[in-house]
């Protein structure tokens, strides 16, 4: 597996996904905070809160306008660069993405118009409901996208049909309401709330540093910092739940995130290389200080987990994967020849080994280990910056509550510089999730090398640079429009 075609295809998809994720969390976070602000206005009738909510809605609008449709590029790439993958899972992905497009997007698009155009034209209550429903629409969009992503990490509710060469959905509810999807959704959405809160406190701190719009800035900080603290705690809680899921379903990702070659019971958590907390990894991965956590080598060699379940070695999985592929080949040959008995026999053989289908493409055990340094350091960057952001948000909230924030210049600087940190933390989180699951496009079923289309590497390279140019122009445009809106407030 590998080669320039795969590497450029992955780089292009990563570039697009990272770019898309610059806008999504801010949309989710601003939607929540501006709705809270408008709720305060409706409750108190204080016009200052109305102006504050309107200002953040303007920022929301700019971010929404620049970010809208960037996700569509990912769908273009599915069809062009990942056609094997798209066909292989089309039956599963079709439903969540269609629901996302039809229900959530139209809901968002309808209520966003009322939110922007409806001030003084519709009743306060209706306007407030539209603001909340705009946020709910954006959040529902995220649900269906994360259902699709979660399914790739832990495929459930489907059967592989060798006749159609597709994984076909047999249980919609298992796919749409998988516990792993719920946890992933909660983790991603709460991290979006945190991004919105940090962005608002950061911009407000800039106003305080410039001694401008101080009333609006302090009001915004009181609401946003409280939201940020709650969101950060929820991110930690959902991250803990996500850790349990990863330990259960993707132990290689967890081992890579810890740089753990040899695991065991009472496994230590590595803060940085050479600094460990004994037993902590077992607690995080299993909620048991003596829980068993396998390392990368244990997973390749095969191990028995804490519940006594034996997990086969990589060599055995690869062998069974080859048997599954051979059965698939036999099924197709028998189908073409009209040999019903051979066809049934091949199908039976395929069903026996289909759980390891993707391992048939793996040539070397080492391919099963993701990029450990990248995943290890990304995880630490995410957690470290997340803790720092929680601390800054808590201090901002506390100082604003005591009426001392205007005098605490260093904290205003810290609030402002939290903005790039929250974006870096979010991107690092996705690197852990997506690089950590390599080499799989779909866990255990399809490695990225088999999922990619047969294209020329040069054409993918060309579109990579076209995207890089377009994304850079759009990002510069957004930042300039945002800065102008903030400066002119």
């Amino acid at each position: 597996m590998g080669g320039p075609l795969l590497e450029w295809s992955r780089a292009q998809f990563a570039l697009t996904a990272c770019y898309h994720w610059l806008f999504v969390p801010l949309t989710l976070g601003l939607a929540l905070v501006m709705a809270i602000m408008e709720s305060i206005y409706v409750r108190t009738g204080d016009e200052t809160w109305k102006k504050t909510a309107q200002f953040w809605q303007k920022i929301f609008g700019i971010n929404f306008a620049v970010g809208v449709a960037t996700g569509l590029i990912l769908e273009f790439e599915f069809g062009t660069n990942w056609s094997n993958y798209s066909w292989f899972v089309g039956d599963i992905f079709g439903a969540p993405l269609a629901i996302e497009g039809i229900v959530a997007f139209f809901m968002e698009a309808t209520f966003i118009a009322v939110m922007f155009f409806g001030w003084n034209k519709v009743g306060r209550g209706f306007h407030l409901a539209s603001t909340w429903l705009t946020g709910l629409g954006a959040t529902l969009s995220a649900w269906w996208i994360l259902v699709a992503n979660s399914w790739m990490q832990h495929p459930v509710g489907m059967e592989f049909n060798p006749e159609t060469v597709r994984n076909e959905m047999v249980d919609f509810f298992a796919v749409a309401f998988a516990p792993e999807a719920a946890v992933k959704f909660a983790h991603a959405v709460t991290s979006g709330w945190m991004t919105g809160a940090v962005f608002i406190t950061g911009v407000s701190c800039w106003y305080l540093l410039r001694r401008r719009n101080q009333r609006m800035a302090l009001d915004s900080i009181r609401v946003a910092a409280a939201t940020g603290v709650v969101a950060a705690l929820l991110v930690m809680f959902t991250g803990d739940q996500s850790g349990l899921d990863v330990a259960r379903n993707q132990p290689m990702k967890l081992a890579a995130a810890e740089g753990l070659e040899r695991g065991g019971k009472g496994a230590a958590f590595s803060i940085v290389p050479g600094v460990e907390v004994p037993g902590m990894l077992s607690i995080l991965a299993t909620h048991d200080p003596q829980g068993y956590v396998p390392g990368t080598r244990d997973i390749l060699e095969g191990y028995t987990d804490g519940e006594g379940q034996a997990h086969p070695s990589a060599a055995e999985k690869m062998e069974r994967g080859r048997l599954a592929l051979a059965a698939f080949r036999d099924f197709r040959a028998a189908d073409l020849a009209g040999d019903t008995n051979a066809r049934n026999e091949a199908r039976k053989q395929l069903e026996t080994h289909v759980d390891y289908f993707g391992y048939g493409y793996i040539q070397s055990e080492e391919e099963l280990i993701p990029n450990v340094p990248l995943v290890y350091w990304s995880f630490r960057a995410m957690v470290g910056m997340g803790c720092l952001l929680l601390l800054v948000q808590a201090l901002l909230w506390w100082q604003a509550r005591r009426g001392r924030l205007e005098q605490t210049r260093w904290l205003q600087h810290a609030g402002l510089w939290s903005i790039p940190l929250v974006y870096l933390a979010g991107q690092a989180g996705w690197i852990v999730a997506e690089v950590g699951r390599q080499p799989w496009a779909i866990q255990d079923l399809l490695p990225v090398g088999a999922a990619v289309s047969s294209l020329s590497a040069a054409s993918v390279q060309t579109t990579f640079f076209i995207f890089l140019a377009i994304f850079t122009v759009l990002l510069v445009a957004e930042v300039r429009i945002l800065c102008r809106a903030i400066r002119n407030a």
Partner: protein
Amino acid sequence: MNLKNGLRHAVRLYTDGFRQMTWGRILWVLILAKLFVLFAILRPFFFRPALAGLDEEEKREAVADGLLRQPAAAPAAAAETDN
């Protein structure tokens, strides 16, 4: 009658809203330019679906061949068949 009024009110909300836009105009220009680049340039010239132009059966065959022609799959699977 109420429905008619409601619809008229909704249409007026949109038309007035678009007419009175200030900073929103530049955002609409940005959105339309982006959609033009996406659907009039990138999609037809750079992102034609790899299986475009094939009927369902041809797509199925193309993917199956692609999956079985992978470097790792082909020799191993063939060797297993020989056994």
